[in-house]
């Protein structure tokens, strides 16, 4: 029973209920499948109770965070008194356990509409879907977020400063919606194979597949924003394993929606779609394993540490790989497939090639990300860097752009090359103009020229088709083409911003102008923190034409961890972003040099010709400090110092103020005869005070220095705009397919074209 004593019981109880009800759901649907129709309402009710348990469980963790109940280990580990309320709540998904819980939460909620949408296939689909969630429940029961500490700490360890960012509030939860949604097409596919009902699953799964694609796409976009705009990693994508873990399922999902489109319109890809649905879900599990098990700890910028759940993750993955492998091996041959009779220059053939290309791209990224694991069995494990991904993806991107340029004007029955070229006349003219423009701007490498030509052809052709289609059938029908316009835009943005970025790393001395390419930078000053702003650096940027602006990269110390944090400053212009990423700040020293010391009561220190002795704390420097603390207001403590210079003793009293938010402020005191003294910390356990004394020695002044990474990134905005267009197009397509899926349920006939 000692195990129980260490759990927060209401929370643990909801998890056990979730386990119980998910097993009951499985049992119920199993009975339905054996022909006991009366078990259906039992199974449905059990699933509802399961979802309610998970919601309650999440609510309890959220409540514990809101109450800052540091008895609970998870709350203690990931949150603290200094956090703003929204970071305190976002600590929910800051750790492994909480992120599995939010995954389970979204998964269980998605099951409610899925139950209705599954139609006749409800029992097998919900059975398999519940199994995917059961795996998460097992992990959470084993690694409960409700473990309690033996004592009640006064404060938590706080949230990792890198995560204290507004993007942290929205990016991870959206990502987990995408992960949870990937199980839905998988469940449809497996149920269809299992029950030998090969018709109809594609229509039902299609809107879910599109929805998952959209959500995961949004999450990747937000992650890119986060990396670019505030983390100061210099780019939106670093091919880091954690990033790849979300990209691979998204690519397989992209292949899947194209396959489902083919199945719905032409009855093709009927076997391949089972594979795509499996790969999408299994790659989510595999990515989770790679990033959560600690196998990549030495290779990733931000993979989690091992929680001791590697075995569970491998088991979970094994079960579903086994399930998918077995069903595919046994049943795939039975699935009726139409022979490929499309001519080469037809939409069907182009789609086949596109799907293969996207799949190859996903596989290549998967292999690259797995490098540390794959090479583990060789003599020396290793990893591949961005250069691998950039190199192998260049031909893939070229082929994708080529296919995208032709596909809108290819018909199913095939096209004469002459007719096709006539239809592509205007887009081709646009592409040629864009390419000439790029060449003038400095794009000379042959592969890059071809890239610009094909990507702008893709953009032009799909834009023309989108407009034509929107005029003829309404914009709702043009979603696919619109998404392809966005892909063309993204490709151009990626090439320009990654292959043609340029800049330099510089160290600026305060007040001394320095040239970086055509800009002249002067580090003006370091601005202190205000109520709304972090500490900022002010850098004057003068352009060649004499105009100038001020850049404010941020660089500050996290109060709790003393960890240096940076936020870049981005000057966004139409044609390029200028990116100022701070690297290091050296505050320099006033003449005389500085000195620090920690003094207990009665101890003294020497700085130059002066002796400072710490006499006592002054708790009444600004009202009674103890009372202020009890009232929850700011608390001010003074340090009484006896300063002896040339036999003359005087007392000074620098102040130290704690705010309830956790921020601290120090008010320095001037020393008689020059110099300053400030309190930089108080050690409550031994009653000592940490002092910073400046201006007493004889060292010469050191100017402050700021190191910056200044980069110009041409056309980077196209990457963001392109993704918006892709997602808007995807949303239109999803709406369209949802409508069709609902019609399909009303008219339960064979799949229509």
């Amino acid at each position, binding site marked *: 029973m000692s195990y129980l004593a260490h759990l927060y019981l209401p929370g643990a109880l909801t998890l056990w209920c979730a386990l119980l009800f998910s097993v009951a759901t499985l049992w119920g649907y199993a009975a339905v499948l054996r022909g006991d129709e009366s078990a259906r309402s039992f199974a449905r009710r059990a699933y509802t109770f399961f979802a309610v348990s998970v919601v309650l469980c999440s609510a309890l963790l959220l409540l514990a965070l809101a109450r800052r109940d540091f008895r609970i280990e998870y709350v203690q*580990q990931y949150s603290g008194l200094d956090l703003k309320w929204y970071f305190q709540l976002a600590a929910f998904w800051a750790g492994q356990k909480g992120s599995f819980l939010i995954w389970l939460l979204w998964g269980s909620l998605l099951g409610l509409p899925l139950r209705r949408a599954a139609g006749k296939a409800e029992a097998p689909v919900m059975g398999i879907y519940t199994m995917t969630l059961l795996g998460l429940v097992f992990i959470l029961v084993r690694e409960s977020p409700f473990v309690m500490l033996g004592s009640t700490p006064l404060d938590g*360890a*706080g949230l*990792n400063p*890198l995560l204290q960012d507004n993007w942290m509030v929205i990016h991870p939860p959206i990502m987990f919606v995408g992960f949870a949604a990937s199980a839905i097409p998988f469940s449809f596919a497996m149920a269809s194979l299992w029950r030998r009902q090969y018709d109809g699953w594609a229509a039902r799964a299609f809107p879910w597949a599109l929805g998952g694609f959209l959500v995961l796409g949004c999450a990747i976009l937000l992650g890119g924003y986060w990396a670019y705009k505030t983390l100061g990693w210099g780019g939106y994508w670093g091919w880091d394993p954690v990033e790849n873990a979300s990209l691979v399922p998204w690519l397989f999902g992209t292949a899947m929606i194209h396959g489902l489109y083919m199945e719905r319109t032409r009855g093709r890809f009927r076997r391949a779609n089972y594979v795509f649905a499996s790969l999408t879900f299994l790659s989510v599990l595999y990515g989770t394993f790679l990033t959560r098990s600690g196998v990549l700890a*030495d290779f*990733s*910028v*931000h993979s989690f*540490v091992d929680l001791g759940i590697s075995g569970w993750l491998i088991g979970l993955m094994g079960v579903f790989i086994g399930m998918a492998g077995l069903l595919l091996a046994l049943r795939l041959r039975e699935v009726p497939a139409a022979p*490929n009779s499309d001519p*080469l220059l037809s939409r069907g053939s182009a789609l086949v*090639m596109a799907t*293969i290309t996207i799949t*190859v791209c996903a596989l*290549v990224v998967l*292999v*690259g990300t797995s*490098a540390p694991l794959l*090479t583990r069995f*060789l*003599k*020396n*494990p*290793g*990893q*591949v*860097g961005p*250069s*691998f991904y950039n*190199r*192998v993806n260049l*031909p893939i991107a070229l082929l994708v752009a080529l296919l995208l340029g032709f596909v809108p004007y290819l018909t199913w029955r095939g096209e004469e090359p002459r007719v096709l070229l006539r239809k592509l006349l205007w887009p081709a003219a646009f592409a040629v103009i864009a390419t000439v423009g790029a060449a003038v701007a400095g794009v000379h490498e042959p592969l890059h020229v071809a890239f610009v030509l094909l990507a702008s052809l893709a953009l032009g052709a799909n834009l023309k088709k989108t407009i034509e289609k929107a005029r003829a059938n309404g914009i709702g029908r043009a979603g696919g083409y619109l998404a392809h316009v966005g892909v063309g835009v993204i490709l151009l943005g990626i090439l320009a911003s990654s292959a043609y970025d340029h800049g330099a*790393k510089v*160290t600026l001395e305060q007040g001394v102008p320095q040239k970086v390419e055509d800009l002249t930078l002067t580090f003006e000053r370091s601005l202190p923190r205000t109520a709304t702003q972090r500490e900022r650096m002010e850098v004057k940027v003068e352009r060649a034409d004499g105009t100038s602006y001020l850049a404010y990269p941020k660089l500050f110390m996290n109060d*709790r*961890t003393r*960890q*240096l944090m*940076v936020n870049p400053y981005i000057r966004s212009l139409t044609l390029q972003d200028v990116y100022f990423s701070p*690297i*290091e700040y050296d505050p320099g020293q006033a003449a005389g040099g500085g000195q620090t010391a920690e003094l207990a009561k009665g101890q003294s220190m020497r700085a130059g010709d002066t002796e400072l002795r710490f006499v006592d704390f002054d708790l009444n420097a600004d009202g009674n400090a103890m009372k202020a603390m009890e009232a929850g207001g700011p608390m001010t403590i003074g340090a009484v110092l006896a300063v002896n210079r040339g036999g003359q003793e005087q007392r000074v009293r620098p102040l130290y103020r704690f705010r309830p938010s956790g921020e601290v402020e120090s008010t320095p005191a001037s020393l008689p005869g020059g110099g300053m003294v400030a309190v930089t910390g108080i050690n409550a356990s031994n009653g000592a005070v940490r002092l910073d004394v400046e201006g007493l020695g004889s060292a010469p002044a050191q100017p402050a220095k700021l*190191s910056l990474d200044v980069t110009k990134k041409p056309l980077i905005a196209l990457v963001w705009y392109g993704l918006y267009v892709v997602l808007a197009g995807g949303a239109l397509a999803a709406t369209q397919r949802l409508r069709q899926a609902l019609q399909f349920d009303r008219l339960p006939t064979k799949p229509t074209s």
Partner: protein
Amino acid sequence: MNRKGYYILGGVLLLAFAGFSLASFKQTLTPYVTFAQARELDRTVQVAGGLEKGSAAYDTQSGTLSFNLQDKASGETLRVAYKGLRPANFDDAISIVAIGRFDAKTKEMQAEKLLVKCPSKYQGAEVTKTYGS
């Protein structure tokens, strides 16, 4: 060309791409090696270790940071030179991964990239930052 011809062509292209990917994989793979191996191998590798106390020096003229990487088990050291800015909190680093190539002439590893792990109060969650391009 008939249909079969296209399939063969497609297959050949796929195989060619697989070969190209494999070659790229081998070329760009940076294996984790011991200090001794790093000195012998004429290729980009990565080594991990701790910072030997007091060994780090920054030459502002050439903008080069040099330091001794120390094997945590054997205590053996490897001199590393990194052309670039000195990473923040470098002296507090508890573990450093250097990616680069050993230069037999200077007897130093010329690092292109440093992964610096700094201690953090968070249980188990060290903060890693990557420097270099």
